[in-house]
């Protein structure tokens, strides 16, 4: 089978096949058939005595060529095919594909394409608004007490999105603090302004880096998980099962995720702030010989509490963005593995995009208010 040999010879009006006529030899046989010329004869006898193995691909080839030769005006007959081979030939001949598959290769109309994308985007936005509205209604029903809270689901989400994220968030924030302190230190050292490092470091970590980096990490870690979990449940028809039992996925799946993240993200930001400042402090001590006491003293007196509060205020908004986009993309998965992957990617990209957009908006608003 692995080193299959097959030939076809033309001799005195007879086409003599030998060897294995099967998939591995198909391309060789095609080439040999193309090379044959049939001189001075109009009748051809197809002789199958010497065929070893014949599979449906081989049978297809025989029938395919017979059709071609008949079109060219030859009379064709079979001879000496064994019973099993004849059976395969009959089977293939009964199912011989005559119709051609139409695969459109025409380039799509550019205008139509633009229109389709535009409509698709606005429909997506509409569906997202619908999703947010539905979630809000569901939240109101919970607050009014007409729907039951799911404390266990909420606790699970807090555990998974909050507690289990602590090590990685702490580590990365600490490293960012170290890097920041190093870069600031290099600049400040040349002016002899070492003592200002807690001011700059504290302000930038508490107000910007803490919330922003934590949100981006959580978008990658938790937003993608939301999409993948809900998408898989959608593919597996678990969401449909919930609905038929009279439960709304909003109540059981989405609201706990959104609320859970709204609770945990500010806490994670605080955690990141602590580790960011800690990392910076260690670096300042090592590089700039700033004593622990001096660092903390300066931090306390020079960095306003406002910076921390502003940073923490951003966190719930970021959480809503991450969880909202993650859950929406998860619920938008449609049946295939490809769509699951696409939506998970989209969930992370969109969440990070909106986080940065929201952060910029915060900066503008706070500067208007003079904060």
């Amino acid at each position, binding site marked *: 089978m692995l080193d299959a040999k097959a030939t076809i010879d033309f001799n005195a009006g007879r086409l003599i096949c030998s060897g294995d006529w099967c998939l591995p030899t198909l391309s060789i046989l095609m080439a040999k058939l193309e090379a044959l010329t049939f001189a001075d004869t109009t009748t051809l006898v197809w002789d199958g005595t010497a065929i070893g193995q014949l599979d449906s691909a081989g049978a297809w080839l025989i029938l395919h060529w017979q059709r071609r030769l008949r079109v060219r005006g030859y009379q064709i007959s079979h001879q000496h095919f064994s019973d099993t081979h004849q059976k*395969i030939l009959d*089977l293939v001949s009964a*199912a011989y594909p005559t119709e051609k598959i139409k695969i459109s290769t025409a380039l799509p109309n550019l205008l139509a394409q633009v229109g389709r994308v535009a409509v698709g985007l606005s429909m997506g936005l509409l569906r997202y608004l619908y999703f947010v509205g539905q979630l809000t209604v569901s939240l109101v029903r919970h607050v009014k007490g007409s729907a039951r809270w799911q404390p266990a689901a909420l606790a699970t989400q807090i555990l998974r999105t909050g507690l289990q994220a602590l090590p990685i968030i702490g580590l990365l924030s600490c490293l960012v603090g170290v890097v920041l302190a190093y870069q600031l230190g290099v600049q400040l050292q040349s002016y002899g302004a070492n003592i200002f490092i807690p001011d700059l470091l504290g302000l930038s970590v508490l107000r910007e880096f803490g919330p922003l980096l934590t949100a981006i990490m959580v978008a990658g870690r938790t937003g993608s998980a939301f999409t993948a979990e809900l998408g898989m449940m959608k593919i597996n028809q678990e969401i449909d099962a919930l609905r038929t039992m009279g439960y709304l996925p909003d109540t059981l799946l989405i609201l706990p995720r959104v609320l859970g993240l709204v609770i945990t993200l500010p806490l994670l930001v605080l955690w990141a702030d602590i580790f960011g400042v800690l990392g910076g402090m260690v670096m300042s001590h090592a590089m700039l010989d700033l004593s622990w006491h001096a660092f903390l003293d300066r931090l306390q007196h020079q960095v306003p509490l406002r910076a921390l509060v502003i940073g923490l205020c951003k966190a719930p908004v970021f959480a809503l963005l991450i969880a909202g986009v993650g859950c929406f993309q998860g619920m938008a998965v449609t049946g295939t593995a490809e769509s699951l992957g696409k939506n998970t990617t989209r969930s992370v990209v969109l969440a990070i995009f909106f986080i940065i957009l929201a952060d910029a908006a915060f900066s503008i608003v706070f500067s208007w208010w003079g904060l």
Partner: protein
Amino acid sequence: MTQTAVIEIAQLGTRIGGRWIHRDLNLRVMRGEILVLAGGSGTGKTVLLREMILLRRPTCGEINMLGFSLTKISRSQQQHLRHQWGVLFQQNALFSSLTILQNVIFPLRRFSLDKTICHDLALLKLKLAGLGADVAARYPAALSGGMQKRAALARALMLDPTIVFLDEPTAGLDPGRVAAFDQLILDLRAALGLTIVMVTHDVDSMRRTADRIAFLGEGKVLCVDTPEKVSQHAHPLVQQFFHNV
């Protein structure tokens, strides 16, 4: 029917999660027959099938397929063996990102054949499986369960396999379609001389198609025989399965 065994399973044992699923299981599958693996839920039918198609290693024991021992087989021999069988999975396992045509052509990739030939061969197999050219350009998600089963069968038959493994091929189909699918399997066996190993729960379906039924229970094959004889077997598990006693 020549009486040579294509699959021989000897003293097979499988341990999953601290529990023996199979213990001292013996079974022979003859060339050209349709063997049905039957048994209650959790008796390890699908596990046994997965062990036969090299998706899972048995804990102990021996499986001999087409002259190769599956426990001592080299990588290239594994590849060689894999090209000799077709598998229809319980959930069809059609690639959801490819069209039906691309799915069916998929096994042909390594032959570097011309595209039009591939198309014709795929259409041939689809037609054998009872599907027309109109479904070829559609995606699996756009097909009904029965059509997906047929498309998956067409893909399993693409390389003219010696052995075809069917895992619950008729699960989720309505009785009329089950009968049609059974007939399809019988026709294909007659025409292509296939050996078929099939896992099924459907008693009517196995009565129609099976040459022999291997009834699994208590970790081994309780009996292997023709459908009539198996359904008369005295073991309480067999009686319960066939007659709801």
